[in-house]
C-alpha cells in the first residue's frame, strides 16, 4: 500500500458516509396506473407480529389488484429513528413507518407525514370518533392527525415471584392489598432481594443509565416532569430533585437497582422486578419462573400511569402516499384493530376494555389488563418528547452521566442539566 493513497482513502470513507446514501434514485414513481408495492418500516422482528401484519396486508392486496406487494421491513429497535431518517435522506424512504413517541414532535411538525383525517373519516365503517383523544394528542397538530396511535402501551411492573419468595419478601399482590405498593416499599423489597439472593432487585428496562426518558416511569410518581408545556426545563425543580435523589440512594446506598455498567435481564430471571411496557409480556411465554403484573407503584404524589406509544404514519416523500394512506385506513380499521389488539393495545374506546383485551391476551388476566392497560391508556402521561428530541436526549444524557456515581451532588447535577438543555428547548 502506498502511503500517498491514505488521504483520498480517508476522505472517501468520510465522504461516503454522508453521500452514498444521498445518491440513491427516487424510485419508480413514474407510471400513474402501474403496479404499486408498499414498504412499511417497523421495529418489531417478532414472527407472530409480522405474520399477523402479512395476513392483514394480503387481504388488502386481494381487494386492490393494483397493489402487488406490501412488505413489512423490520429495522433494529436501537437506532430505529436514525436508520429511518437515513433511508429518507438516501431517497429510499419507506411508504409507511412506525414512529417512536419521542420522535413524534419532530415528525409531526416537520411536514414529513401526510395528514390522515380525511382518508380515515371517509373510509366506510372506520369509526374515526372511536379513537381516544388521549392517544391521538401527541400525533396531532393544528387539529389534524398525522399518525395513527398504533400501539399505546402503558408501563407496568413485572415481578418474579420465585425470587421474591426466595428472599422472603411479600408478593406484590400482598403489598398492594396492604396499601404498600409504593416506590418506597418496592425499593426496600428490591434491596432485600439483591442482598439475599444475589440477583438484581429492580430493573428499569432500557434505561441502562443512558435512556433517561424511561425514568419518567419513576419521577411521574413525584409529579416531576422533564419539561412543561411551555418548554421550561423541569430537572431542577424540587419534585425532580427529590425523585432523582430517591433513585440515586436506591442505586448507590441500597443496591436496589443494578449500578451503571452492570446488566441484568428480568426476562432471563436475573431480577426481582422490572418496569417495562405490557407489550413485553410476550417475552414471558417461556419464562421459567412464576410472575405477576401490576401497575406502577405509587409515588409521594399518589398513583399514576405512564404510556409509551408507537405511531404509524405515511411519509410524504413516498411514491404513492395516497395508496399508502388508504392501506393505513384498512390496516387500522375496527376489525383489524381488534386483531392487532392481542399485541398492540388499541386506541379505540370500544376495544380498550379488559374483556376484549383478555380474549386475545392469553398471558394476562382480565384484572391485570384492567388495572394496567385500560386505566393506564386513558389516564397515562406519555414519555417526554420535544422538537429536536435526539439532541435534547443526548445533551441530558451527557449531563446526567455525572449523577451516576456514588458521590454525586444531585441538585447541582440537575441544575447543570437545565443549564445545558434550556437553550435547546427554547429553539
Amino acid at each position, binding site marked *: *500500500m502506498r*502511503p*500517498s493513497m*491514505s*488521504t*483520498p*482513502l*480517508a*476522505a*472517501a*470513507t*468520510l*465522504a*461516503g*458516509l*454522508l*453521500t*452514498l446514501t*444521498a*445518491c440513491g434514485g427516487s424510485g419508480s414513481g413514474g407510471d400513474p396506473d402501474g403496479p404499486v408495492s408498499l414498504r412499511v418500516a417497523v421495529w418489531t422482528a417478532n414472527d407472530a407480529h409480522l405474520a399477523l401484519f402479512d395476513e392483514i396486508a394480503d387481504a388488502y392486496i386481494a381487494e386492490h389488484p393494483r397493489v402487488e406487494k406490501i412488505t413489512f421491513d423490520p429495522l433494529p429497535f436501537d437506532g430505529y*429513528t*436514525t436508520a429511518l*431518517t*437515513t433511508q*429518507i*435522506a438516501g431517497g429510499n424512504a419507506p411508504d409507511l413507518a412506525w414512529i417512536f413517541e419521542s420522535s413524534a414532535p*419532530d*415528525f409531526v411538525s*416537520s*411536514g*414529513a407525514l401526510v395528514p390522515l383525517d380525511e382518508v380515515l373519516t371517509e373510509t366506510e365503517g372506520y369509526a374515526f370518533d372511536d379513537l381516544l383523544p388521549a392517544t391521538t394528542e401527541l400525533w396531532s397538530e393544528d387539529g389534524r392527525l398525522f399518525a395513527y396511535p398504533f400501539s399505546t402501551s402503558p408501563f407496568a411492573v413485572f415481578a418474579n415471584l420465585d425470587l421474591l419468595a426466595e428472599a422472603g419478601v411479600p408478593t406484590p399482590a400482598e403489598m398492594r392489598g396492604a396499601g404498600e405498593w409504593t416506590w418506597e416499599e418496592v425499593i426496600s423489597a428490591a434491596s432485600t432481594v439483591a442482598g439475599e439472593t444475589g440477583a438484581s432487585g429492580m430493573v428499569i428496562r432500557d434505561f441502562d*443509565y*443512558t435512556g433517561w426518558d424511561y425514568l419518567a416511569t419513576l419521577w411521574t410518581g413525584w409529579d416531576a416532569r422533564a419539561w412543561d408545556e411551555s418548554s421550561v426545563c423541569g430537572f431542577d425543580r424540587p419534585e425532580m430533585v427529590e425523585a432523582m435523589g430517591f433513585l440515586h440512594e436506591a442505586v448507590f446506598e441500597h443496591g436496589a437497582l443494578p*449500578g*451503571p*455498567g*452492570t*446488566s441484568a435481564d428480568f426476562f432471563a430471571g436475573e431480577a426481582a422486578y422490572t418496569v417495562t411496557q405490557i407489550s413485553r409480556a410476550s417475552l414471558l411465554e417461556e419464562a421459567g419462573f412464576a410472575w405477576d403484573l401490576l401497575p406502577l407503584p405509587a409515588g409521594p404524589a399518589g398513583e399514576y400511569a405512564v404510556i409509551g406509544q408507537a405511531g404509524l404514519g405515511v411519509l*410524504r*416523500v413516498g411514491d404513492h402516499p395516497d395508496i399508502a394512506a388508504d392501506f393505513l385506513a384498512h390496516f387500522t380499521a375496527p376489525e383489524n384493530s381488534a386483531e392487532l389488539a392481542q399485541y398492540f393495545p388499541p386506541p379505540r374506546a370500544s376495544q380498550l376494555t379488559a374483556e376484549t383485551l383478555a380474549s386475545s391476551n392469553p398471558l394476562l388476566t382480565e384484572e391485570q389488563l384492567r388495572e394496567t392497560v385500560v386505566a393506564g391508556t386513558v389516564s397515562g402521561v406519555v414519555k417526554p418528547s420535544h422538537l*429536536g428530541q*435526539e*439532541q435534547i436526549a*443526548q445533551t441530558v*444524557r*451527557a*449531563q446526567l*452521566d*455525572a449523577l*451516576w*456515581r456514588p458521590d454525586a451532588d444531585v441538585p447541582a447535577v440537575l441544575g447543570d442539566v437545565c443549564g445545558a438543555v434550556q437553550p435547546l428547548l427554547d429553539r
Partner: protein
Amino acid sequence: MSSPRGGHRFWTGRRREVLAGYLFVAPQLIGSLVFVLLPLGLVFWYSLHEWNVLAGTFEFTGLDNYDALLNDPALPGVLAATGVFSVGLVVFNLSLALWLALMLNRRLAGTTFFRTVFFSPVVVSLVAWTIVWRFLLQENGGVNGLLDLVGMTGPNWLRGEGTAMLSVIVVQVFKNVGLNMVLFLAALQGVPRELYEAATVDGAGRWRRFRSITVPMISPTILLTSIITVVGSLQVFAQIDVLTSGGPGTSTTVLVYYLYQQAFQFHHFGYGATLSVLLFAIVFVLTFVQWQLRKKWVFHEQ
C-alpha cells in the same frame, strides 16, 4: 510505397498502447471518480446548505455552517477528545507493535503461533470484537473478575471519565496492533544481518544497535504505519458507538462520532457535511506534515 496506407491506419501501435493503458487504469480511475472525488465534491456542496431531511428542505445558506462551526461551543471538547484518542492510539499502537515485532523476530519455538494470535484480531469483525470487549469491561465483567482474583477492585471502565477513553484506546489498539506488527516484522527481516555483525565487532551494545541500525533501517515502515494509524485513529466510530456512545459526559465524543450525531441523529446534514470537511482538512494537513517531515528522519529519503 507503404506510407499512405500507414498514415490512414487509425490503430497504430502507439494508440493501441495508450488505449490498453487507459483500459487498465479505468477500473481504478472510475472507482476513484465515483466513490472518492464525486462524494468529496458533494460533501463540500452539502456543507453550504441547510438540509432538513424530515421536512425535505435543502436550502443554500452560503457559509452559515462554517460560521456555526467556528462558534460551536461543543467543538473544542470534541477536538480535544479526538486529539487525546489519536495521540494515545498512535503512541500505544506503534510502540506495542514494534515491541511485539522485535520479540517475534527471534528464532524461538512458538513465534509463528504467537504471530497468528496477535494478528487474528485484525480479521475479526470490528463490531463483534467491540461488543465482546463491552461485556468484558462492564463493572461486573471479565476484566474486573480477573482483577478480583488477584485481590484488586477494578474501576467501572466504560463509565469513568478517564478510564472510558483509556478503554476505547486499548480495545482499538488490540484490534489493529497485529497489522502494524506484521509490517514491522517484514521490515525487520529486511535489515541486513551483516550490519549487526559489523556493529557487534565494533563493540555496539543492544540499545546502540537498535537505535543506530534497526530504527533507521525500518524508518520507512515507521512512516507508513504512523500515517495509516493517525488517519485510522481520526476515523474511529464503531468502537465509540458500541462502547461508550460518546460518554460519560462527552469525554469520548470524537470528531467522527460528533459528525454522526449531528447528521444522522440530530438531522443536521448540512452541518454534518461541514464537520466532515473539517475532518478532511485535518487529515490532509497531518498527512502532508508527516510526508514533509520524512526527509528529516526517514533513512532512505535523506
